[in-house]
């Protein structure tokens, strides 16, 4: 099923973005009419879209801090306007870092200053690439992008970052928790959050943050990298071996993009 007539999604790229192709494929497989839009596009072009996805990578080489320069890019002015008008915005990995640096999530008080950030992993501050699961930790309808997911959905994804640990002061964390901003938490395959399931020392095991209005979602791990059976890191991949249709079938992380598409119908 396609999105409502004319609903178009822009996958926005900055210099240094590197996950746009797989993000576009996952968006399209989820049912979203998706277009690649570069940072050089005019504001008019960017404003013409109904929703935005900021993919992973290293925008502006992570200069100053991960996401900090991109958060102030001219392109983000249109995204900020769109978010304020209720358009859906999904940031994945570096895209999530950009959204937090831009103050678009968690957006506790409407300030444009960052209230939280995804910073260096703990322990060790090292880059990690590992398969993870994340659980929807809020009521699905709290976030428009997750609204079509069943309650407490567990999604597979790949964590692939050196700066993915949610950090904020204790008061901000309490406010984020009490106002249901902690959209996704790391968990094991069964949906249980354990210290071993958290790849980066993130506060409260948080993997994804939603804004106040529920239309902006910042998600650190990559659901688009576990969106087809051949990408799975479990028995289902072996089970599908030899069956072309099953191996190439969409599954797992694609559910988030299907839910995103459902919100635009």
């Amino acid at each position: 099923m396609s999105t409502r007539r004319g609903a178009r999604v822009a996958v926005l790229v900055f210099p240094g973005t590197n996950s746009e192709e797989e993000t576009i494929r996952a968006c399209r497989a989820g049912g979203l009419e998706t277009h690649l839009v570069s940072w050089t596009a005019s504001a008019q072009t960017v404003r013409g879209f109904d929703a935005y996805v900021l993919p992973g990578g290293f925008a502006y080489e992570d200069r100053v801090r991960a996401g900090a320069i991109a958060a102030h890019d001219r392109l983000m002015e249109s995204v900020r306007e769109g978010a304020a008008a209720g358009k859906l915005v999904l940031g994945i990995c570096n895209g999530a870092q950009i959204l937090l640096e831009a103050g678009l999530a968690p957006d506790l008080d409407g300030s444009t200053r960052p209230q939280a950030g995804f910073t260096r992993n703990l322990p060790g501050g090292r880059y990690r690439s590992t398969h993870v699961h994340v659980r929807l930790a809020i009521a699905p309808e709290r976030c428009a992008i997750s609204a079509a997911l069943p309650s407490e959905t567990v999604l597979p994804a790949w964590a692939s970052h050196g700066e993915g640990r949610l950090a904020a002061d204790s008061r901000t964390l309490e406010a984020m928790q009490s106002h249901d901003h902690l959209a996704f938490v790391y968990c094991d395959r069964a949906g249980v959050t354990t210290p071993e399931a958290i790849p980066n020392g993130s506060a409260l095991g948080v993997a994804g943050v939603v804004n106040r209005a529920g239309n902006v979602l910042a998600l650190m791990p990559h659901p688009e990298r576990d969106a087809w059976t051949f990408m799975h890191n479990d028995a289902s991949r072996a089970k599908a071996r030899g069956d072309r249709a099953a191996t190439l079938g969409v599954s797992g992380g694609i559910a988030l993009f299907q839910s995103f598409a459902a919100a635009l119908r």
Partner: protein
Amino acid sequence: MIQTIEIGLTIPDNEAYTALTTLQRLGVEIGGLRRADLWRFELAASAAESFVDHVRTLETIYNPNKHTLRVRHDERPACGEVWIDEPGHGVLESPVRISGRVLPGVERAARSVSWHLQAPEGGPASAEVVRRAVEILLCNPAFQKATI
């Protein structure tokens, strides 16, 4: 004894240039921006005398082909300068190992970033301009601390 060493770049610093153009575009009135690593070493008394010479000859934090090394005696940032620290990061405990090599006589090392802001007409930027640059770009207060 505490020894503070500032390691800057002699080659073009892309990160500082990007930060400069971003701040200028956002209306912060500066004419130049320089970035440096600021290392604060806690030294054993026996290591203090020869430590800076030792750093100059070790290929760890200083490479004479592309770095400047400046010993800092001030305990606060200079005029037009801000220090950015990330609590919980950049602190190394004994034995302090940098780039795989142990720095003998160092009991603790802490690394932060120093930004030097210049006014458009030259000279250090005012504290007000530094504060604005910090607020807009140079520090994320959620996990960093700025000392002006």
